[in-house]
């Protein structure tokens, strides 16, 4: 029962975060500096998710540089993303590289 309550509470708070700035409480126009700052929201938020997903071990929560297969796969994916600008090519190349490296070992 407590699990359902936790799911529903977290769901309400998540919806609140998504809806808050779309709600009628928001002012009609935004200051220039805020409009400029908003251009950097996607790259900043997504990079903050990408970098730890590559360098931080999901098991121990510590930084891993040596024997980290995800670094090589991420570098290939970045190169593919830069030259092809294709989402499908980026995901497939990154996954293929990590599978190759995993089964190579």
């Amino acid at each position, binding site marked *: 029962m407590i*699990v359902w309550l*936790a*799911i529903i*509470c*977290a*769901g309400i*708070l*998540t919806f609140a*975060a*998504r*809806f*808050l*700035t*779309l*709600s*009628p409480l*928001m002012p*009609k126009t935004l200051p220039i500096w*805020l*409009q*400029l*700052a*908003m*251009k*950097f*929201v*996607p*790259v*900043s*938020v*997504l*990079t*903050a*998710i*990408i*970098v*730890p*997903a590559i360098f*931080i071990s*999901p098991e121990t*929560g510590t*930084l891993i540089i040596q024997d980290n297969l*995800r670094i090589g*796969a991420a570098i290939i*994916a970045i190169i593919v*993303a*830069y030259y092809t*600008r*294709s*989402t*499908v090519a*980026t*995901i*497939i190349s*990154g*996954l293929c590289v*990590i*599978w190759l490296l*995993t*089964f190579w070992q």
Partner: protein
Amino acid sequence: MFSGKNKGALSEFLAGIKDGLPLQLAVIPFGIVFGMVGLEAGLTPLQTFFMSSILFGGASQIVFTQLYATGTPFTILVTTVSAVNLRHILYGLVMSEYLRHLPLYWRILLGYLLTDEAFAISHLRFTQKHSSDAMHYHLLGSGLILWSCWQISTLIGIIAGPTIPDNFQLGFAVPLTFIAVVIPSLTHFPQIFAGVSSGTAALIFQFLPFNLWIIISAICGIIAGTASSYLMDSRDTKTEEKP
């Protein structure tokens, strides 16, 4: 007149679905991973399945199962999971520019569907030169295709999860999706500087509790990008010797 408007809405809706489709290549493995770890953490199949529609946020759902598995107290669990989704405030802020004029029920629906992926895809559309009155249908399309795939893949994970080996590393598809979105947007120095600052901060602030490093690193990146583009603008106007 009227049919022309509906036609515009339909074509935006279909464009949203079409633009969102490539990203499902990462959403589906992510959903399967979530279905698997939900059961492993000790949630029931029903709790795992309905979390995908009640919470509807991949990273936060994974965090939920991790915290649940380690017996985290109720209040810390709920605040941490919500903290992971704090970034959506920023998405809403960006989107409000394009969605503010819509009726309330539209904004409630689109707010519910506003995920990382749908935001990234439809923000690209909204910032294109030719804007239209029916642009919000693009977000509806990209949001609904993601929502459907997320529910179906969660179900697949719950049913088939135990048969998929761990070393497939399906969770790695998540950062790969974001790489595919971020890299093409790094066209100017301030964008690159924002990314580098945010990524570095994300490693430095790992020690913070409640996954607070996500929102703090994002703010670092935003400040770095905004400040550097301000400085570059003022330098440019000086060299051009404008009054």
